[in-house]
């Protein structure tokens, strides 16, 4: 297939997954933030400012220390969900997904295009009206969660399991892994149980650092899965291990890396000589090794950072090998172009 098409599909998958995770995170975090911390265990602090930090500086989320400090809660929520001028907003992700889908309309089914298009149109239309109201951002998040599930469902049932589907999937998996790692890096308290003491008597500071991680689980959407899979209370350490290593949970980093490997191995003409396949394969093995070798209570932030870095290199390998070197640049320009194009169409 054309390198350009593969590239668009891969980024369609990434943008869909990013929109969904932004929606989930906003819903979970902003609602938890309305209340104070639980009195029994203050827990992990994963608030909306952390959410902004999660998206890095380029998104314009934290442009300048002063500006960020002045940001109000409502503005932050709006910025993350329905602000069309911000490249990292949920709406912008959906807009980019629509642009991508429009480019590959001949590859994806009509039904899928329609689902993506309808989602974008309805977000655009209602963003101006009903979803500006207080509480509207939550409804918009809810809507995006449901619609992305629908879109992925259609892809699953209607698309051939060919190269095109593999690239779409791969984009989704790498984005989910990246988003989960970002959340962990922001939310995990630095130096939580760093000495790996295991069942040592908890000193107050450590107990606080390992407090409950409800907000984190809610933000990922894995609360129920966690409760079924893990008997330990939802504290920072077991939750982080779950989100990193639990292969049975589809949105865990390990499961995403596995699926990513599968997708590239199937799409690649000669997977045994393919740099991205080999790199992902090594990463999967490393995650499995860490899961088994790490003692309880070991520090996990370093692993998160390394895995995220490795995934960024996978992204580069993918661009080089499959997309004829088109790099995934940090490009605000692309969004402005999208916005401009939309205006042009409207004119």
């Amino acid at each position, binding site marked *: 297939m054309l390198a350009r098409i593969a590239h668009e599909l891969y980024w369609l998958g990434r943008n869909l997954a990013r929109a969904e995770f932004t929606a989930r995170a906003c819903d979970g975090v902003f609602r938890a933030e309305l209340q104070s911390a639980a009195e029994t265990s203050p827990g992990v602090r994963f608030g909306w400012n952390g959410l902004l930090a999660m*998206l890095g500086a380029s998104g314009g989320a934290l442009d300048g220390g002063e500006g960020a400090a002045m940001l109000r809660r409502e503005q932050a929520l709006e910025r993350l969900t329905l602000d069309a001028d911000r490249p990292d907003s949920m709406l912008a992700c959906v807009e980019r997904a629509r642009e991508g889908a429009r480019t590959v309309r001949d590859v994806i089914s009509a039904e899928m295009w329609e689902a993506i298009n309808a989602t974008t149109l309805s977000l655009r239309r209602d963003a101006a009206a009903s979803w500006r109201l207080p509480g509207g951002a939550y409804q918009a998040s809810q809507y995006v969660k449901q619609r992305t599930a629908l879109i992925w469902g259609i892809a699953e049932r209607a698309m051939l399991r060919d190269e095109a589907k593999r690239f779409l999937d791969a984009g989704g998996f790498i984005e989910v892994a990246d988003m989960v790692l970002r959340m962990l890096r922001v939310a995990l308290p630095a130096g939580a149980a760093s000495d790996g003491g295991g069942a040592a008597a908890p000193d107050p500071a450590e107990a606080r650092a390992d407090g409950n991680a409800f907000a984190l689980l809610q933000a990922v959407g894995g609360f129920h899965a966690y409760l079924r899979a893990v008997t330990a209370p939802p504290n920072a350490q077991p939750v982080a291990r779950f989100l990193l290593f639990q292969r049975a949970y589809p949105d865990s980093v390990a499961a995403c890396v596995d699926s990513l490997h599968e997708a590239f191995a199937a799409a690649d003409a000669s997977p045994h000589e393919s740099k991205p396949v080999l790199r992902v394969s090594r990463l999967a093995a490393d995650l499995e090794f860490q899961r088994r070798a790490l003692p309880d209570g070991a520090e996990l932030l370093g692993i998160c950072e390394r895995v995220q870095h490795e995934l960024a290199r996978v992204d580069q390998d993918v661009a080089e090998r499959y997309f004829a070197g088109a790099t995934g640049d940090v490009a605000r320009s692309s969004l402005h172009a999208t916005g401009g194009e939309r205006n042009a169409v409207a004119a």
Partner: protein
Amino acid sequence: MPEATAHDLFYDELFEPGGAPRRAAAALVAELERLGADGLAEAGRRRDAAFLQQGITFETAAADGSRSLERPFPLDLVPRVLSGAEWSHLKRGLAQRIRALNHFVDDVYHGREIVREEIVPWTLVASRSHFARAVHGIRPPGGVYCHVAGCDLVRHADGSWRVIEDNVRTPSGISYVIENRAAMTQLVPQLFAGYRVRPVDHYPQLLLRALRSVAPSADSEATVVVWTPGSLNSAYFEHAFLARQMGVELVEASDLVVRDDVLYMRTTRGLVRVHAVYRRLDDDFVDPLEFRPDSLLGVPGLVRAYRAGSVAIANAFGTGVADDKAIYHYVPEMVRFYLGEEPLLENVTTYLLHDAEVREQVLSRIGELVVKPTGESGGKGVCIGPHASEQELEEVAAAVRAQPEAWIAQELVRLSTVPTAGPDGVLAPRHVDLRPFAVFGERIDIVPGGLTRVALEEGSMIVNSSRGGGSKDTWVLEDGDDVADRAGPPIADTTPPALPDLRYGTWSSQQQQQQQQEEVR
């Protein structure tokens, strides 16, 4: 806005008698005014749609009584606000009361010291319908009987709190507390601005921890289950909710079996031992060998396993004797007797009717009092004097004379009011009570607030949801949050780490796109 006359009779929790908002409620009242009646009505419509969609409903009989209707659970969008100081008083009072009730259950089935001291008459205890001879002499792990308790509180015209009823069998409603809060944060997040409201959603974890702490399992992680009578039970929503939130199995009687005094559940991998059961059905039905022999919902041999100490049951069998309405009268005495403390929460003035003199006095002014059957719960059979017809009063008087031990009389409590939105979003004061939920494991934890039930009819004091009552989200504020003007929640104290930038896919350059567009033109 509430009328001035109502303030002379009832305590309004949001407004002072003059009509000015109370200190803790000022920010809330301002937001409510900004929202307006139309805004509230609109949020109400969204709430009903969301509740129907999520299946948070209850069934009521249709007007003609022929079939049952599924209605969205009636949540009023105006929250009730309790200050941190008020709550810590309530919390201490409740913990004290629950500790005393737990002592009483232990005493009744063991030494009976309170009877020998002639504080509570034995004939009264033994005649209670929930007194369980089958569990005499059994002491559960940790000596905890009332793992889950919910005492109903009301607020008098002077603003003081009273306990009106204890529930130490299977109090329900906690799922609505949690779902109400979730719905409020979704529907009207702006009301929370300027407050730090204590969360409630950790209750399932508290319960799970308490159940694990009393489970008799030496080596492995204890297996905990929630036991429901079945999906037709009116509280099934709550049973499923708790099982899901705790991540444990929801079992019915047919899933459980006792072998050699050990309780097991049937799984695809054979029998698996169960260490702790959170049961949501009455003593009468749990074991046909010891309680009602015709029970089809029970597990034969369960009491034997319980007696052998191989399984923890929450709440323990026989706790019903402590929340009987005739025993309620003695709870303040229990606090003094077992704990050597003065009760922090008072009872509503109650009359026991076995004494002929008291009985006749009560019957002479039955029109002013509230008369309740002792063994019932959920507002069943309650007769409120001022609201009852002549005929109803006569029937109740006859029933009391026929069986005086089965009834009590209480002074009428003028329940406090909270402004409540009608279908059109207009606020009017409605009467409320409060049911906080406590979990007793290694210690007593009480979820901040609890279920506020509200009578939706004007002037009505019947708050039961089966009889037209609704509910409210109950906010307990952090200490110091009841100050009138306070800035919004502070921005994070810690600086989050700098993360790598997000990446965006770019295939064609900007220029290329512009050229393409020019082509179109």
